[in-house]
């Protein structure tokens, strides 16, 4: 395993066009000049069971021979193989860039920008209405305050009026009552005086009578 990994990692390092010096040709029949790139690679790792026996021989020779020859075995595997693929990929990339720009970046980007602008506009307009709403609210509060003041003023006025009325009536009633009282008192006094007067005369008569009865000198 270690050998295999070493070998495959060896391919990473080998530069492709090293000349081949191959004294003993192992099982692969298509071992030919390295300059022809279309030839099958020397070492194909997909080995069918038929070739297992030969693979064993290869493995034996691999294990026996030092590493540099291993590198030669894998030489055809080219990691750094630059060819027309490079410009084709570049062209494909440019094509993809322009097409994606037409299909994706520009339309969706514009759409998103427009939406952003719309949302911002809506937001700012909403902010404007909020000031409007505030003004309206203030107005409403002012109206309410005025109405309340009016109502309380009216209430106060009414209270005052009724209080004055009540006071006036009360004063009148009191005056009437006083007058009646005065009258009653006056009549009482008069009656008292009369009775006292009458009593006085009666007292005089009685005392005369008593005197007459006590002193029957005559």
């Amino acid at each position, binding site marked *: *395993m270690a*050998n*295999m*990994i070493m070998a*495959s990692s060896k*391919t*990473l390092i080998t530069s492709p066009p090293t000349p081949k010096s191959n004294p003993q040709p192992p099982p692969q029949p298509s071992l030919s000049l390295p300059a022809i*790139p*279309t030839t*099958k*690679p020397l070492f*194909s*790792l*997909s*080995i*069918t*069971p038929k070739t*297992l026996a030969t*693979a*064993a021989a290869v*493995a*034996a020779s*691999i*294990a026996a021979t030092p590493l540099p020859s291993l590198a030669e075995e894998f030489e055809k*595997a*080219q*990691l*750094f*193989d*630059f*060819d*027309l*693929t*490079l*410009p*084709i*990929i*570049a062209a*494909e*990339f*440019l*094509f*993809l*860039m*322009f*097409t*994606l*720009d037409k*299909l*994706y*970046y*520009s*339309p*969706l*980007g514009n*759409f*998103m920008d427009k*939406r952003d602008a719309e949302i911002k506009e809506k937001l700012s307009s909403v902010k404007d209405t909020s000031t409007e709403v505030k003004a309206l609210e203030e107005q409403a509060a002012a109206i309410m305050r005025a109405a309340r003041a009016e109502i309380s003023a009216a209430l106060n006025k009414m209270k005052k009026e009724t209080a004055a009325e009540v006071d006036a009536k009360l004063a009148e009633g009191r005056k009437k009552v006083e007058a009646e009282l005065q009258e009653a008192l006056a009549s009482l006094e008069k009656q008292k005086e009369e009775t006292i007067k009458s009593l006085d005369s009666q007292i005089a008569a009685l005392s005369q009578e008593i005197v007459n009865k006590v002193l029957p000198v005559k």
Partner: protein
Amino acid sequence: MNVLSCSINTLNGLYDLSGVEVGQHFYWKIGGFQVHGQVLITSWVVIAILLGSATLAVRNPQTIPTGGQNFFEYVLEFIRDVSKTQIGEEYGPWVPFIGTMFLFIFVSNWSGALLPWKIIQLPHGELAAPTNDINTTVALALLTSVAYFYAGLNKKGLGYFGKYIQPTPILLPINILEDFTKPLSLSFRLFGNILADELVVVVLVSLVPSVVPIPVMFLGLFTSGIQALIFATLAAAYIGESMEGHH
């Protein structure tokens, strides 16, 4: 010796099963030139996936996005964010480049990890992620180089070359060297990561065919995404760097 050959036999059988074929290509000939057929086939599939899904999702955009449109809006926001962070306020014209860079590499990498390419047998070589091939990564890296040169020249005219003697003319060789190391590092980073990831998975599968490779596969998905992001971010950073003013 005998034991060794036997073990190698069984290992060969396992390799047959998992089919490691490193650096094997399915060659086509186009006008006397060779191309790697397997790379082109998979890249077409990737392009088809991208174009198809984008067309389906963005065909009729709704004010309140749902499902696919939502996802693609998120992706576009992400790309714009990356471009804006790296390039600055003038990122607008570069969104398609950065975005396509990211999406192409990302879908390529994930297709190598998720799509069962190995089911389709090629006469030679095997289907894998397009980014598994050095041609693809070098093509993308060279396009990035062209892009940042274009960006700089477009923005500052010939004054762009003044950056080579900034901050002091002594750094001229290093500044020139940078133009070579940038695409080199970009392409080899991507290529090496993707190839190594696939190799690790294949070797692990050949050793322990079940359960054990699964975490490594997930790790592979993670690194694939990260690599796509790194490539796109670096490309954007290079473009931004060549556009920013040295006063």
